[in-house]
């Protein structure tokens, strides 16, 4: 069966290649969290603790054992799907992440969707009309997008739309307290609310999402628009565009079927990179909008040396990146027949 489905086999091969990466992440995240300054036992024993009670906490947390033993325990738990207990929240890390990851994903994906919808047409337009007002608008937007820090854009948007205009809801999390959060199916509020048919909640969740997503979109828009413009300019000056024009093909066909599809490859690459750093770097946006995502969770855990939570976060992110890269590789082969799986 595998021989008959080369693409399936290639996907499995790629997955197999991801195993050492994940194993490496497990080891490194374990060692790095141990190398962090600060003693979690001191922190969790409380302010009034004496030597004895700190030692007691240390033994309870298993931190008195040598590193290799701690690691074996960690991996053993991991294999059973147990990411450990978060000491600061008191809940299993797996549960915490399952609650918070969808929030981050919903925010990032919406932002990325917005960014693509604006940036790609803008880049195409700028490339087809270099030197015109569209091109200049593209340049201004790109420069603004990369040069304004997200926390600043976020606060600016809150100031304008919440404080001055009053059209946006208060920037306090995923849903205003007047709504009940929808039943947990996917963890994406928009999808869950739609599944329940609760359109009022859906609206509420969407309203909460607009400002943080716009903030993040403005930031991620820049690289996508720039790359689209550059890739389109390259594609449009290729020989095959001249052939297509000489054959009398219409402007639309030349632009989309010939130039744009060839320009997609670098755009998709950029998209993958942008998604990766947006997911990791939206901590600031999450903080500004009190968004209960994994970025803010990880930062809080890091501050108190909450080993299990930090390791869980790093591991989940690594898995996410591996999946993302696999998806992008698959997308390449769909776009460009020249890229064979054999070469990898």
């Amino acid at each position: 069966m595998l021989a008959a489905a080369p693409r399936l086999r290639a996907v499995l091969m790629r997955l197999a290649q991801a195993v050492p990466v994940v194993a490496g992440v497990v080891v490194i995240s374990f060692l790095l969290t141990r190398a962090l300054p600060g003693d979690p036992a001191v922190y969790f024993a409380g302010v009034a603790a004496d030597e004895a009670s700190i030692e007691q906490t240390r033994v309870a947390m298993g931190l008195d054992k040598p590193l290799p033993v701690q690691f074996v325990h960690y991996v053993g738990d991991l294999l059973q799907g147990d990411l450990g207990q978060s000491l600061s929240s008191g809940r299993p890390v797996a549960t915490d992440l399952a609650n918070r990851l969808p929030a981050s994903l919903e925010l990032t994906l919406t932002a990325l969707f917005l960014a693509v919808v604006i940036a790609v047409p803008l880049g195409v337009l700028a490339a087809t009309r270099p030197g015109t007002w569209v091109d200049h608008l593209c340049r201004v937007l790109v420069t603004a997008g990369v040069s304004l820090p997200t926390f600043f854009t976020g606060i600016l948007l809150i100031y304008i739309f919440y404080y001055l205009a009053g059209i946006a809801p208060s920037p306090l999390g995923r849903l205003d307290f007047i709504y009940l959060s929808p039943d947990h199916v996917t963890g994406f509020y928009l999808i869950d609310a739609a599944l329940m048919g609760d359109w009022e909640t859906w609206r509420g969740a969407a309203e909460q999402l607009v400002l943080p997503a716009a903030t993040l979109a403005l930031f991620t828009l820049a690289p996508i628009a720039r790359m689209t413009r550059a890739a389109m300019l390259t594609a449009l000056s290729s020989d095959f565009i001249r052939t297509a024009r000489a054959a009398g093909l219409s402007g639309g066909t030349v632009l989309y079927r010939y130039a744009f599809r060839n320009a997609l490859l670098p755009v998709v690459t950029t998209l993958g990179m942008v998604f990766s750093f947006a997911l990791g770097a939206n901590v600031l946006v999450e903080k500004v909008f009190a968004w209960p995502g994994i970025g803010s969770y990880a930062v809080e855990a890091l501050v108190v040396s909450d080993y299990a939570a930090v390791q869980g976060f790093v591991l989940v992110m690594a898995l996410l990146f591996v999946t993302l890269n696999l998806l992008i590789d698959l997308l390449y082969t769909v776009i460009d027949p020249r890229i064979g799986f054999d070469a990898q």
Partner: protein
Amino acid sequence: MLSVRDLSVIFQTRRGVVDAVRGISFDVAKGEILGIVGESGSGKSVTSYALMRILDAGGTIKAGEATYSGIDLRRAAERDMRDIRGREISMIFQNPRAALNPIRKVGHQIEDVLRQHARATRQDARAKAIAAMEAVKIKDAAARYDAYPFELSGGMCQRIVCAIALACDPRLLIADEPTTGLDITTQKAVMDLVRDLIREREMSSILITHDLGLAAQYCDRLIVMKDGLIVEQGDPLQIFSQPRHPYSRKLVDATPRAGASVRDLLPVEIRAPEPKIVETDKPLVEVRDLVKTYAGKSGPVQAVKAISFTVHRGQCVGLVGESGCGKSTTSEMLVRLMDATAGEILFDGDDIAAIPARRFARDPRRADIQMVFQDATDSLNPRHTARQAIAEPLRRLRRMRGAALGIRIEELAGLVGLPLPLLDRFPHQLSGGQKARVGIARAVALDPKFLILDEPTAALDVSIQAVVLNLLVDLRAKLGLSYLFVSHDLHVVRLLCDYVIVMKDGLIVEEGRAHQVMSHPQEPYTKSLLAAAPKPPERATPADQLEIKNAQYTALHDKRAS
């Protein structure tokens, strides 16, 4: 059918306005094949793009008229032009692989054109595309329909480009250097096909080329262009035997052909006597059972299959064959940039194949074996001046510094005829011929014994090729060099080489004295190569030429007087 009057095309560039075409007039009659010949920068391609109105950004038709069957091509609406392109006038291009959309099936690309011009519907597009492929003699067209350009050979890609161009039965076909970059036999096959189709469908055609020989062979009438102007037009035979304009004469002279010596390529005024070359029978390089095997996707690929030959001191050996025959692999192994799988390369009696390519850079014999690369532009570091490029081997292998280095560089520049002020220019500030000289100066800087020339003139215009070939002959005589000359151009090999090796599929199929192999080939493959080379018309005898020259002189005076 097509009438062009005083056509001028300008380009807006950063450095101001450039006149690419400066007022040219010509006609193409029904059923006629018109050749436009000129070197790079002559405006021949720009003319055709202007007619199709597909000039690159910044280019505009400044003045003049172009009328096709009563339609004003200059003023027609873009929508009308789109109907004309592909249906009335269509084009085929050089570098066919790049001229096709790399990520679209070739069948779909043909369908796009058919659908655009309403020659096919969704239902019958596939069948009509396959028919269009069969019309350009693509075997097994139904199977090729689903291929992507990268899966096809260069010749096959050019057939697809032809199929796209001819799918809607246009009346005029513009072929812009259609065979540049193709092998010589493929070139002949493609040109014969295009000519037959044009004749069969009673189309007209414009063939744009830098190859005067090719144009003369396939065209009814020729136009010679230089710097955006038409300098001469007329019958190919007449242009070849009695070129009236000095520039056409220079081009005709520079075209390599049977029966001409390398000096004959130069304009009469600068022809010096040919140097005496001493060929010995002492072997310099002996290749024995040389093998190169690559690991391919489906098992090992034998690029070179146990070949043996000898290059004697002072000899020039030509290595001829089509792409994929193993000639480049062989030359790379000889220059010790690639390791051989098996076999010996005896240089002055020592086996240098035993030294790994990685370590050969430090071997004292590195200086003895040097190479001149195919593309003079790509083989120079764009951030190094000519001086730095020539200094590189001297610094590294001779440890030359300071004044001695400067003296040697200027000596070398004098040797290859590179004016000294040009030494401090960067490659992009030099012309093609000047870059070729820098490449040659770099190769001979260390007084090598053996020089490998990998198609050193393939990217050059014919008149510059003529100069560079003569330079190579002079250097060989002056420095006592031995050459291995790798080329697919048989005329050039005939001019330069004493001995010829013909390769095919990694094997030597024929070898012998150059004039022997060229005039009495024994193997069918060699015969087919020779048959495929363009044959320029016979030249008039020197006596005739002298007479013409006088006549032309008088004519010129008459004209001035009037």
